[in-house]
């Protein structure tokens, strides 16, 4: 974990409202693994005291990439960032996704920008598996080719039916779970809204599979100091307590989460 000042190498439209930000942060890039995130200080955001967290979409010796969608004051202000701008990152933060067990096939479930860390995970996965990508409309279904080009089975759903099957992502998951092809030893990974994570966790647990969920909580410090980002969990001894999404997560096994 370090504070790194870097420059924007590229900032471009990725798809629909989503943007891709390429940063020459090689220190963080070399250390970052799928599931980790950076805490980004948005330039020229007057009166802001907090950074904003973004998952690593790519990380390597040249730097990092993130995908984001404007949803509020901070991410709106990010739209005006241009190539050459300097900004400060803290990262890589949090723990990455655990590696998929040797005899298991990975099953990924993504909603919205949640596909970004999962695409990075697929890049490092020992073997291809299946990914369910859900979104409100076609624009929200990102990175399909990242997976297809690596031999993954991609199942798309949109709520308005503009791409793939119509409905929520759970509809596609449930149909697949009914089919014989779902049999076997699986390891689940999911990133998206809480409702999606909860649904994935329930389905994985019902079959005795691990489901690794990447949680999104509003953050303060990003390093474990302020206790803003906490999530209720069940401990091994049956008691309940808080964990810090930024430091202890953002990835947790579904059965530990108290929704």
């Amino acid at each position, binding site marked *: 974990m370090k504070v790194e000042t870097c420059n924007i190498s590229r900032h471009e439209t990725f798809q629909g409202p989503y943007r891709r930000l390429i940063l020459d942060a090689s220190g963080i890039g070399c250390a970052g693994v799928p599931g980790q995130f950076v805490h980004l200080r948005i330039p020229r955001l007057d009166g802001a*005291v907090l*950074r904003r967290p973004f998952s690593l979409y790519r990380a390597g010796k040249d730097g990092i990439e993130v995908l984001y969608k404007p949803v509020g004051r901070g991410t709106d202000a990010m739209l005006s960032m241009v190539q050459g701008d300097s900004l400060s990152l803290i990262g890589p933060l949090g723990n990455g996704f655990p590696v998929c067990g040797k005899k298991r096939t990975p099953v990924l479930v993504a909603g919205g920008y949640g596909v970004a860390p999962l695409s990075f995970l697929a890049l490092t996965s020992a073997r291809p598996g299946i990914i369910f990508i859900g979104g409100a409309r076609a624009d929200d279904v990102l990175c399909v080719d990242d997976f297809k080009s690596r031999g993954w089975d991609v199942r798309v759903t949109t709520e308005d039916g503009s791409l793939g099957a119509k409905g929520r992502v759970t509809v596609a998951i449930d149909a697949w779970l009914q089919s014989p092809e779902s049999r076997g030893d699986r390891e689940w990974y999911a990133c998206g809204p809480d409702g999606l994570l909860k649904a994935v966790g329930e389905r994985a647990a019902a079959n005795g599979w691990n489901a690794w969920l990447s949680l999104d909580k*509003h953050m303060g410090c990003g390093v474990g100091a*302020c206790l*803003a980002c906490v999530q209720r969990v069940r401990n091994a001894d049956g008691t309940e307590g808080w964990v810090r999404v930024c430091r202890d997560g953002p990835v947790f096994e579904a059965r530990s989460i108290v929704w």
Partner: protein
Amino acid sequence: MVKSSSKTPDTTAPSMAVDIGGIRMRNPVMVASGTFGYGPEYADLVDLNALGALVVKGIRIAPWDGNPTPRMVEVPGGLVNAIGLQGPGVDGFIADYLPFLRGYEVPVIVNIWGRSLDEYREVAQRLDGVPGIAGIELNISCPNVKEGGLAFGTQPDMARSVIAAVRRATRLPLIPKLSPNVSDIRVFAAIAEAEGADAISLINSYPAMVIDVRTRRPVLANRVGGLSGPAIHPIAVKLVWEAARAVKIPVVGMGGITGPQEALEFLIAGARAVAVGTANFTDPTTALRVRDGIRDYLAEQGMHDIGELIGSLAT
């Protein structure tokens, strides 16, 4: 430094050391309670030994769950938090964090709170004589817990009794932390001094609320919280100035420091040390920048010791 070079006053770095009620600090820049965890959280990013002192998150006699989430929301010029003093309790702190902190030379100040006079007394007693603790900051000003907290800090009689009780329970340097939410800060500063406090610190966050107009609900689960950050800085400067003139014991100034400028204001107003809070989240190296900026300012002004700056307000 080589002896010969220190003969020329112009090239000698100004002395930054301060003594806060018996706590000797290398420089006057501390980090504020609740914004720096217990030390390990920021240890990769900041050299803890470069801090004047490290004030840990508030602890009580037993573990405490704090408030439900959301616990924090950003507002223009600051943030409102209602963490609710979640913590491992005094024994958890001693077992899980103190061994780590003992590996550093930085003075560790433990921020304590309680729901009753007895709880305050017990936690102070428990810390007394424990190696590795430089002092106690007595939080009588937290806006985020229903019992205790702010009630002790806004009523003079309660402030008096809790400071007196804790004073009797510990030999460690004692620093009551005052609430800004009072009509006359001088009354509370004077009570702290009279009851044997070694220093005072101020300000804690200011009671505040944020409403989501779409849902018409409070944004924070606790409904109300405490405002911190640049928005409270001028309020804090005024209160520090008043408090510093009311007592002889050292004053630690905090509230909205983001760089050397705001810290210098506190020192000029009469604070002997300062603490960086919310700005740690924006830039974890703020305390180090502040320290360097103060040193540069002293050099520019031809001052050789931070003492020349403290309370130097021209009126």
